[in-house]
């Protein structure tokens, strides 16, 4: 009961204090709003970058060319051997016979068709292939070598150096994005904490009086912690609105893509709510901890 009463009074006092120290509250909230907008933007941007690079990586295929002398049992044997390589996405393995390839090539290019039409009925110099995808793009080189070592496989194609370079660049980009988000959250924490410190500095006299009349340090701290929590919560409302409506607007305005259809943006519904939640949590927790730290200084503990 006693604890409940103290909690209840702390919450009441924190509301009172927000209104009675309106200008200070306003300063804290403004600072929170600005920094949290930056956090929201960085979260959405880095999520998009990660998704786009992941998508490009997922679309990468490896083509395995099979020697024309191989009969049907040999072709099936190759498939089983491919499945045994751990890095291969077994569901993605597709067989394309040389007849199929001839037909597709003919349909795509009239000139090629006319050349291929001169071939004898059973003559087809093209090679049957397996098209497949890998699980971990970073190990593509090793996987290609193991594929090459399979009997009756003549050639393995995957884009070689270009792909390897791209994978490296994407890796760096993703890491930079994560570092950026973490750094921004830390900067936000620092800025909000400092603003709260300044506002609490002007109330150190108040804290000193509380100590003199026999209020325990915990009870002094509670209203300040609630206040920080509330200010963080209030400060995250505008950034959340900007995240939800701003990104939806941007997505619609750009038609869901950047520059070309190759680079698709993440749909708003899949990211804005998570980003909003992160903003809300960062805002309220940083507000709470900032206040707790700032009061600590005047409690002589």
């Amino acid at each position, binding site marked *: 009961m006693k604890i409940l009463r*103290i909690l209840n009074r702390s919450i009441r006092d924190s509301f009172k*204090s927000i209104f009675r120290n309106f200008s200070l509250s306003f300063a804290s909230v403004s600072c929170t709003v600005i920094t949290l907008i930056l956090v929201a933007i960085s979260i959405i941007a880095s999520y998009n970058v990660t998704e786009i690079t992941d998508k490009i990586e997922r679309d990468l295929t490896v083509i395995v060319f099979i020697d024309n002398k191989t009969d049907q049992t040999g072709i099936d044997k190759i498939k089983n051997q491919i499945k045994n390589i751990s890095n291969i996405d077994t569901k993605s393995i597709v067989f394309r016979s040389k007849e199929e390839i001839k037909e597709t090539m003919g349909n795509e290019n009239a000139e090629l068709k006319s050349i291929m039409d001169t071939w004898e009925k059973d003559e087809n110099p093209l090679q049957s292939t397996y098209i497949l995808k890998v699980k971990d793009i970073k190990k593509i080189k090793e996987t290609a070598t193991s594929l090459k070592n399979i009997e009756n496989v003549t050639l393995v194609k995957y884009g070689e150096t270009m792909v390897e370079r791209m994978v490296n660049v994407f890796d760096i980009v993703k890491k930079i994005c994560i570092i950026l988000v973490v750094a921004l959250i830390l900067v936000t924490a620092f800025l909000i904490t400092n603003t709260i410190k300044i506002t609490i500095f002007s109330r150190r006299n108040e804290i000193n009086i509380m100590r003199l*009349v*026999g209020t325990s340090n915990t*009870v002094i701290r509670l209203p300040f912690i609630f206040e920080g929590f509330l200010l963080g919560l209030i400060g995250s409302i505008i950034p959340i609105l900007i995240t939800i409506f701003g990104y939806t607007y941007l997505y619609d305005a750009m038609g869901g893509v950047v520059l070309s259809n190759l680079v698709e943006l993440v749909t708003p519904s899949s990211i804005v709510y998570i980003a909003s939640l992160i903003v809300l949590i960062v805002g309220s927790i940083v507000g709470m901890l900032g206040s707790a730290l700032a009061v600590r200084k005047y409690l002589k503990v």
Partner: protein
Amino acid sequence: MEFIEVRNCYKVYKNGVTALADANLKITKGEFVFVIGPTASGKSTLLKLLYREEKPNKGNIYVGGVNVSKLRNSKVYKLRRKIGIVFQDFKLLPKLTVYENVAYPLESYGMKSSDIRKSVLKALERVGLKEKYRSFPHELSGGEQQRVCIARAIVNEPKLIICDEPTGNLDPDTSKEIMDVINAINKEMGATIVMATHDKEIVNRMKKRVVTIKDGVVVKDKMKGSYDNENIKNTKS
């Protein structure tokens, strides 16, 4: 052991000023003690040691059997709940009303609202300020603000009330009224009063125990004493 005992206390501030040098004092429960002395004699420091705003460099202080000088910072509030403190500058919370100011200590202890109401109104009645419970401190005169401060000091019915020059900012008539209030609290509530003051008239009129401090030492301790000009004169100047 007496209610308050100060034993061989030394206090040197960080800036090198020696405030107390081997101070000794005993105060019995229910006593009314004036602490007088010239400026910078150490009387304020002595009071601050009693409510553990300062720690002595050497020596021990006992208040109600507790060794205050050994008290940890996080436990200081337990001592303060048994002591009422009246300040020269009132130290009221400016954004709270009179009622809220007096109720604040009890609220922070987690007392029931109905009990708080009773205690606060009783304390305000005792200092004669019941009608103004809804005012804010800046709407009150100096004397009224000091009454609020006294009401806050007595609201939890402490055994000891420490007054650090409570009339220092008030005119003689108001000072007299404030002293009457404090005197009544001493008599009716049985609270021990330790008061530092510069007010010659008050000390001479009240005829209480007077402790004179000079250069950090208790030089004179007299029952029914008076303000002795000889000892107050600052020998340094």
